[in-house]
């Protein structure tokens, strides 16, 4: 039996990137292509169902999850520029379908083919040093915010740092408490806006103290939250998805 070719992937861009941050999707495509990957995009895709699932609306989440399984069954590599959506499929679909053995089995199978972007680049493609293929940007200091689900549900703590360190012209200035949640948490940020805001303030304090010009993360939702706070407070630190940094350098 031949090994599946990691040069063919199907991109699940996530609904937030699609609707709010399409440039992150474009960067993801360019980065993958530069590593010789052929990227497909199934235009029927919408959302993995996480917003409903996380809010307790499991009945509403199930049809979306089933839709996802139908679309990606049999695909070898599904890559997402989001640790959170990848966790939803890989980890939480099992919870969502706990009482349906058939769907549970399908979810486990499809889930095992799902990768977050930095995981895919480092663990599957074996990218060590991004310098061979990425453009080099103006030298700049970035700091890295560890997205919660990427770290704690997928267990990926080193991949993104490896890629940042391997990008020419980019210095990684670690902030303190980089592993502490920024306070987003989906509807939590609306339901408990002030608690979430207090968590965000603490994150912003650490980002500023790092002296970085940009804050990089693997989840656009964290960056939407952090970036919204930075903008509101007029702090000139740029939020940047890892894909954008790998694509364009940290300008």
């Amino acid at each position, binding site marked *: 039996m031949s090994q599946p070719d990691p040069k063919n992937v199907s991109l699940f*861009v996530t*609904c937030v*990137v*699609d*609707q*709010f*941050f*399409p440039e992150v*999707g474009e960067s993801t*495509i*360019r980065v993958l*292509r530069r590593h010789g990957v052929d990227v497909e*995009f199934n*235009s*029927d895709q*919408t*959302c993995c169902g996480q917003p*409903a*699932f*996380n*809010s*307790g*609306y*499991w009945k*509403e989440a199930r049809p*979306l999850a089933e839709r996802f399984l139908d679309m990606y069954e049999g695909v070898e590599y599904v890559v997402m520029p989001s640790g959170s959506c990848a966790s939803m499929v890989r980890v939480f679909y099992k*919870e969502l379908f*706990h009482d349906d053995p058939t769907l549970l089995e399908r979810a486990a199978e499809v889930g095992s083919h799902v990768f977050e972007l930095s995981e895919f680049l480092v663990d599957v493609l074996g990218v060590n040093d991004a310098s061979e293929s990425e453009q080099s940007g103006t030298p700049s200091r970035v700091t890295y915010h560890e997205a*919660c*689900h990427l*770290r*704690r*549900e997928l267990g990926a703590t080193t991949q993104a740092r490896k890629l940042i360190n391997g990008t020419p012209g980019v210095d990684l200035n670690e902030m303190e408490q980089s592993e*502490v*949640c920024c*306070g*987003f*948490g*989906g*509807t*939590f*940020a*609306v*339901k*408990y*806006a*002030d*608690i*979430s*805001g*207090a*968590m*965000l*303030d603490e994150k912003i304090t650490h980002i500023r103290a790092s002296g970085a010009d940009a804050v990089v993360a693997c989840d656009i939702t964290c960056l939407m*939250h952090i*970036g*919204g*706070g930075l*903008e*509101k407070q007029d702090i000139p630190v740029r939020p940047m998805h890892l894909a954008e940094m790998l694509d364009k350098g940290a300008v």
Partner: protein
Amino acid sequence: MAEIRTKEFKTLAADTLGNDAIQEHLKALYSGFNQGRLQQAAATQNWEDLRDRARRVKAHTIENIDHYLEMAAENVENAGGKVFFAKNSEAATKYILDLAKQKEVRSVIKGKSMLSEEMDLNRHLAKQEIEAVETDLGEYLVQLAGQTPYHIIVPAIHMSKSDVNELFHENLGVDPHAGVEELASAARNELREKFIQADMGITGANFLVAETGTLVLVTNEGNGRMSTSMPKTHVAIMGMEKIVPSMEDMGTFLRLLIRSATGQRISSYVTMVTGPRSEIEEDGPEEFHLVIVDNGRSKLLADPHLREALYCIRCGACLNACPVYRKVGGHSYGWVYSGPIGAVVSPVLTDVPNAKDLPYASSLCGACKEACPIKIDLPRMLLYLRSEVTEGNTDSSRKKSSPIEKFAMKAWQVSVGGPSMMRLANLIGRLVQLPFARNGRLRLLPPPLSGWTRHRSFPAISSSPFRSRWKKGIKP
């Protein structure tokens, strides 16, 4: 049962957010206890094996809890102790009050026990004109202040030195500018007297070893040892999940508990008590009573989704690791248990409709699960409880979820139902956001989204979403 204020989560949390002094105390939980735990974990060679082993032992014990409770009861009785199984906190309280009456108890000294908080035992004792004095220093402070513990391990973490000065001045007549040592010795003198006078000692239990009937208490002040040995009668109260099969397991559990709780390698005292004073012993109580309490725990046991909450050894690591706890503090949770473990067990022990806000009071970041020495999957249980709140088994809980939120969920579900609906939603969204957008950002949104824009701006929906860019071709 203790007063339930879980419905007030939002207001209590807002008060705490506005209290700068408490915010500083809470921040220190990260640099102090949380980092202490991490250092101990790194310095313990087989830390991960210990965690896995403890989890296996707990899973096995809880699956076979009837067997181990029976074994424990038999061994406590063989050692000369008495065992009482209490279905709820009322039954446990009644047993203790009856016993106190029978023994003509006037004063009680207490070792730290969260279960006693569940029962609101001090209040019940006071009603019978029995003086109950907490002997753990933190608990003592909280008791003097007429409050409840702020944290499982550090009950008075929210108090500053000047709070303590004020308390001791008012209650014990200590100089209002006394230093820490002076305060400590004032507390010591006061408590010494109480230890000598007391007719009954009531303690909790960190563990109960089934094969020997041994009660295990972990303290740093030695108050546990004095509470168990000085008065004539010792009553230990424990939630039924505190059972551990064998003495050999204690090696695993003590290492995990102490390192996770305070970042110490070992606490100053580990007290092991098997039955009352025996014929060949010179000291210890004449009678030993063990009260094993359910008080809603069988609801956790019955639900396979929530059962692992009973693996908890109450180390408090999940509180220290939780960024939400570090903002809202302990009292906001409105009942005995706070932080992530409180957000899981309080709704079940007090009934879900009472505490529907608690499972949502989390960003689901998973720091609790990462910190928990028993690897209890707290976020998964919070998610499950959320689904119970919205589509729960009980009608009353279903009615509790907000109609606006339900409508929003339905609308969202339609909008992402397929690509054409998503295109339509994109168009509608762009029209709706028009009055709010400036330079591609939304800075002020109407309720219910106004909370978001109080702290952060929001991106505007893109007029050319990724899917249309893909169609046109992505430039290299």
